């Protein structure tokens, strides 16, 4: 080709729907027509239904299991116990310590003992009830403090009851201060309460392997555990992501995966398992309940001198992700504040309570209730404004964390607090005109419990910090395969990863990245499965960062190949070409070729495994660069409290969050709304009530999550201070809004009532002081 001529001056607009815009979700239409296939919607001719027998006791030894009557039931195809597990009868995310089917020891109420496959779900359930298990019932160990400190407590696992103790020591352990505040705080057990129940379909394959269609947060970690349980290599255990009805951490561990595979392999038929809501409460881990003791010392002008803390997290019967939860609670235990002298001891312990693991903001949520309650207490002791005491100690870029890690990108703690403080307040209720007041706007609502008498308004603030991505030296990566080819006359990109879309909108962001990087409008997201390398977990606010980073890197490689190819055709140096909206553009901004012509009949494919910068383990004093990125959000809550009845209505909940780069502004705001709502739930209503190791409220009748009546209007302010280490400068978004929402609401209730609230969820009797 000769010297290129200016064939076209107009480069055309950027491709719509790229990074920074808010295009519609690609799965949205299917979701509003009811056609989107969730894991609970899967169906195959001839499939069987699985059901699970669970222990009614939190602590017991199994003497015998008699399956005779169950096996004899018409329509039953298989009844399996621990003897039928071909591989290791143990699984777990980090420590494999949980039996697939209990054979000997029962460590929590709801532990799986036997499984049944039958031709109708009700037949399967009835057969389960015919299995006779002879239990030797033991006294459960349910007090986490006893589990750690009482040497006479029974050891629930080899190696004792302390799953992890992480000390953080920095500065002078004997530092003293003018003003000292102490506090003891408790966080109850919260449930993720995703709406789509645990479910999936296991299909035995001709090669003797298994295909599992499953709603999960991490296909490859499921696969790894299943290989071990089934005694099969990875190429025989293939997982595909089915539609996921929310996750929030509850799908990080296995639930019915191994059970469905075992039944399918045994019967040679497809087996579907689907938990009821009640079973779901026993089928997944919950948020760790916490007991925390804090001591804050400060100067008279409100500067923190030291923080001492002891945090005990009840991990329940099995490890799950407790070690990581301990790491977060410990390393983030003083919050987003500069403190020179820190001594934190965080323990994750085994008890006979329900197993606890990942839930949005894990570890950071519990600690934030402790340290933010303390900051308010300190403000009181100093007679200082609660925002002022926070901003005086605010972390900032360049400051050092209690782990010795220097914060090396934006940490706008002060700015976020000031932004929420500056937002307009809702109108004050008019005390002289309570008759005209809409009941629906009062605590108690249409229950007509007050016409305004006894109602006090309060305002509270809180800010939280969260690490983004996996920490402490974990090899955290994602894999993306990007293909570009011409289809129907247009360039079409295909993005293939194993990363789980759970509702947050990862599929949309993947499309946006490909549009921006490749300048093509049509981007197909291939269904996620284990046919491509791991995408890592959809947790720790990491997918847009890590899988987004992988998609970006794969697109860059595809783009470089297109440009090299164009350079060859055009006889121009590739370094002088760039790609814009489906065209190849030269250094002097001339359109020199169309991408479709360069591609011709060729398909360009690149697969990239992408890692964020490395992190490092913590030493024996909890020192080290353990985290890859920090993220921050602040809340202001306004509440009305009926101080006579202890009823609370959150009137308004406002949030400011730094997201580095709003990849999809609408989705970012959606995460902030949803995360804040879960924090509101923990503040005032959500708790799995456990007594004697027994769950008392495993239903949506008794475990309450916020409804549209509970959730107030929100004002949201999104900051975009780029992190130079992250793709596009982005910061993880999903978890921070859950962290500060809870303490802000509790602070507002304290402000309204003067009550010393030390436990969440806050219950009416905490406010009224009645027993």
């Amino acid at each position, binding site marked *: 080709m000769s010297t290129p001529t200016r064939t076209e001056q107009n480069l055309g607009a950027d491709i719509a729907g790229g990074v920074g815009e*808010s295009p*519609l*979700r690609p*799965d*949205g*239409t299917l*979701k*509003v*027509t*009811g*056609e*989107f*296939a*969730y894991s*609970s919607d899967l*169906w195959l001719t001839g499939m069987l239904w699985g059901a699970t027998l669970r222990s009614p006791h939190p602590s017991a030894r199994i003497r015998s299991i008699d399956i005779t009557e169950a096996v004899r039931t018409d329509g039953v195809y298989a009844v399996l116990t621990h003897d039928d597990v071909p591989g290791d009868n143990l699984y777990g995310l980090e420590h494999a310590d949980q039996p697939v089917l209990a054979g000997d020891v029962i460590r929590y109420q709801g532990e799986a003992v036997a499984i049944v496959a039958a031709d*109708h779900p*009700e037949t399967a359930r009835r057969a389960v009830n015919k299995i006779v298990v002879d239990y030797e019932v033991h006294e459960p160990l349910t007090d986490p403090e006893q589990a750690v400190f009482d040497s006479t407590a029974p050891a629930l696992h080899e190696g004792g009851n302390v799953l992890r103790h992480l000390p953080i020591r920095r500065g002078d352990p004997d530092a003293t201060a003018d003003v000292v505040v102490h506090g003891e705080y408790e966080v109850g057990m919260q449930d*993720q*309460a*995703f*709406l*789509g*129940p645990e479910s999936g379909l296991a299909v035995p394959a001709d090669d003797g392997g298994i295909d599992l269609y499953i709603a999960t947060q991490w296909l490859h970690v499921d696969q790894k555990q299943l290989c071990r349980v089934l005694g099969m290599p990875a190429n025989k255990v293939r997982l595909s992501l089915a*539609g*996921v*009805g*929310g*996750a929030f951490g509850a799908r990080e561990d296995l639930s019915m995966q191994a059970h469905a595979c075992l039944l399918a392999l045994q019967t040679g038929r497809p087996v579907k398992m*689907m938990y*009821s*809501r009640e079973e779901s409460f026993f089928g997944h881990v919950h948020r760790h309940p916490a007991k925390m003791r804090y001591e804050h010392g400060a100067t008279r002008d409100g500067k923190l001198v030291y923080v001492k803390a002891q945090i005990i997290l009840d991990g329940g019967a099995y490890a799950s992700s407790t070690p990581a939860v301990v790491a977060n609670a410990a390393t983030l235990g003083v919050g987003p504040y500069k403190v020179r002298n820190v001594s934190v001891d965080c323990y994750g312990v085994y008890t006979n309570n329900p197993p606890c693991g990942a839930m949005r903001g894990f570890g950071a949520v519990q600690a934030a209730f402790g340290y933010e309650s303390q900051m308010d207490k300190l403000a009181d002791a100093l007679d200082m404004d609660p925002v002022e005491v926070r901003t005086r100690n605010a972390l900032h870029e360049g400051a050092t964390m209690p782990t010795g890690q220097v914060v090396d990108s934006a940490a706008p703690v002060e700015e976020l607090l000031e932004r929420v403080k500056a937002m307009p307040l809702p109108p004050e209720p008019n005390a002289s005109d309570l008759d005209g007041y*809409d009941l*629906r*706007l009062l605590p108690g609502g*249409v229950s007509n419990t007050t016409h305004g008498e006894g109602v006090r308004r309060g305002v509270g603030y809180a800010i939280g910090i969260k690490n983004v991505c996996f920490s402490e030296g974990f090899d955290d990566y994602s894999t993306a395969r990007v293909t570009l080819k011409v289809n129907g006359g247009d360039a079409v990109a295909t993005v293939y990863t194993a990363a789980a879309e759970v*509702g*947050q*909108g990862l599929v949309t962001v993947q499309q946006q990245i490909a549009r921006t990087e490749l300048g093509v409008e049509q981007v197909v997201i291939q269904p996620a499965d284990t046919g491509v390398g791991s995408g890592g977990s959809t947790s720790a606010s990491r997918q847009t960062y890590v899988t987004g980073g992988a998609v970006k890197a794969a697109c860059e490689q595809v783009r470089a190949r297109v440009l090299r190819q164009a350079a060859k055709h055009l006889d121009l140096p590739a370094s002088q070409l760039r790609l814009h909206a489906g065209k190849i553009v030269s250094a002097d901004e001339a359109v020199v070729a169309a991408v479709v012509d360069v591609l011709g009949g060729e398909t360009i494919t690149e697969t990239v495994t992408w890692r964020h910068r490395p992190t490092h383990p913590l030493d024996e004093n909890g020192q080290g660069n353990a985290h890859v990125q920090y993220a921050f959000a602040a809340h202001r809550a306004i509440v009305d409290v009926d101080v006579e009845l202890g009823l609370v209505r959150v009137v308004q909940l406002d949030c400011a969050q730094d997201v580095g780069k709003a990849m999809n502004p*609408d*989705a970012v*705001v*959606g995460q*902030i*709304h*949803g*995360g*804040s*709502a*879960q924090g509101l739930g923990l503040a005032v209503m959500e708790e799995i009530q456990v007594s004697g190791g027994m769950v008392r409220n495993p*239903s*949506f*009748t008794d475990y309450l*999550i*916020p*409804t*549209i009546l509970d*959730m107030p*209007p*929100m004002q949201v302010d999104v900051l975009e201070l780029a992190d130079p280490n992250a793709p596009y400068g982005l910061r993880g978004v999903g978890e921070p809004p859950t962290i500060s929402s809870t303490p802000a609401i509790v602070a507002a209730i304290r402000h309204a009532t003067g009550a010393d609230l030390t436990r969440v969820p806050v219950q009416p009797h905490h406010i009224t002081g009645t027993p």
Partner: protein
Amino acid sequence: MKCTVNGQPQEIDDVWEGESLLYALRERMGLPGSKNACEQGECGSCTVYLDGTPVCACLVAAGQAADRDVVTVEGLAEDDELHPVQQAFLDAGAVQCGFCTPGLLVATHDLLEREPQPSDPEIREALAGNLCRCTGYEKILDAVRQAAATSAQSKAGPS
């Protein structure tokens, strides 16, 4: 058992007495759009119309629907065109995981039939029986407001 679902006659045999309308729709009639988040009448994800009245399909025995008219989320769109309520949920970003969406669409459809221009407190009251764990409801409110505005516009006709 015979009934009409989304305008089509349906017939299922051997209805077992414990079978809910939700189970019949999802597992027997191939209409899994209505969801099953609690099967206890607490979440609204299974909301369908039964003779024009929204009900929790998990609380209705399949037999009770005999000779009656059922409309599910699958029946809201007409001629491949999304219903304005569906479009508004999509446009407003009111759909994340989407598990609550089918029930909310039917409940919103019903609300706007009864009250084409609902106030925010009216919207909240009408949707109080539909749980959503993902969105914090703000964008659901936006979607309902948008759907109300769209139908007001289309009623006003082209200006």
